[in-house]
């Protein structure tokens, strides 16, 4: 129920945003539906992104969830603050998507930022994830667009697998063993 609650949550949001009300409203009253990524899909997603980086001659590729959490980061990422990048990409994507709805468009599935040196190609994958390609003059918008299209098919497949596994994985809760002491210890060192 939990994992499917997550999907309900997003659908509920989308229909709320487009003003249709949510038929699923009663299904999600708690705030902790979870987005879970497993090792197998993680590996496949990394493979697909590495391949996209190679074929599109990109500098770096990021796969980010809608809340700004990084799922995959590949390429020349050492000099980039990936956590900041992910939260800003999620913010700008959320704003762009709201703009689309405001204008009566369903979505602006792609947005592009052109810089002097680096460019940013941002697109939606499987409605819930954001694919971000950083590229420079070694590549071109045409090439990136083409390769992103192909990679999106593959990524969508993998996310489909992931969604199936998430709804099958009802049982295991890694947190069921947590004690109150564990929770208190979280704060003892850093603050």
């Amino acid at each position: 129920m939990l994992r499917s609650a997550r999907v309900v949550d997003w659908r509920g949001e989308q229909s709320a945003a487009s003003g249709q009300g949510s038929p699923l409203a009663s299904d999600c009253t708690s705030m902790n539906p979870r987005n879970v990524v497993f090792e197998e899909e993680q590996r496949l997603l990394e493979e697909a992104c590495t391949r996209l980086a190679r074929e599109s001659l990109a500098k770096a590729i990021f796969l980010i969830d809608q809340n700004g959490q990084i799922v995959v980061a590949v390429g020349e990422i050492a000099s980039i603050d990936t956590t900041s990048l992910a939260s800003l990409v999620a913010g700008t994507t959320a704003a762009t998507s709201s703009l689309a709805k405001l204008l009566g468009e369903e979505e602006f599935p792609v947005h592009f930022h052109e810089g002097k040196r680096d460019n940013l190609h941002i697109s939606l994958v499987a409605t819930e994830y954001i694919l971000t390609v950083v590229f420079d003059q070694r590549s071109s918008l045409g090439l990136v667009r083409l390769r992103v299209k192909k990679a999106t098919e593959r990524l969508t497949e993998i996310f489909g697998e992931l969604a199936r596994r998430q709804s099958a994985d009802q049982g295991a809760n890694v947190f069921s063993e947590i004690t109150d002491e564990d929770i208190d210890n979280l704060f003892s060192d850093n603050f």
Partner: protein
Amino acid sequence: MSFINYSTREIILKIVYYGPGLSGKTTNIKFIYAATNPEARGKLISLETKADRTLFFDFLPLSLPAIRGFKTRLHLYTVPGQLFYSASRKLIMKGADGVIFVADSQEPRFEANLISMDDLKENLAAYNYDIEKIPFVIQYNKRDLPNVSPVSELRAALNPWGVPDFEAASGAPDGPGVFNTLKAVVKMIIQDLRNA
């Protein structure tokens, strides 16, 4: 929505600071940034107007020690409190695991707190969240000022549910109440995960 990655063994919790304009949401997370060990914090991002008002959001990532082998990371966000940024507030609320309502204790801001609390309820309802079930705490901020309402009055108006609430002065050098507020909501989120 907590994010759990079995491959990198990390769990990410999103916490949103809500409340009326100028109540001290940004000041809370700036204090947390300044008081946290540099290894445990990422960059503080503030998308603000020229007059230092939050325009879209502030963002601060923090790392807590591992819990049961999972690295725990907190993503703290503040919303822009000014009324007309309603659309942005709604976007930022999405996927939140917990909410901290920062009230401005000053008497002249009493009404502003109520309006912001109604706005929060509306935004939660839009995502089908139930305010009585989510990890939610309230902070009565600016207790260092002379013109504040008694806590009992604020509580009666803002906290009919009896959720954990805290007095704070996030702008004071030692930021009393700031960490207690944050810890309380993190505790509630993790207890929720445990009982899920």
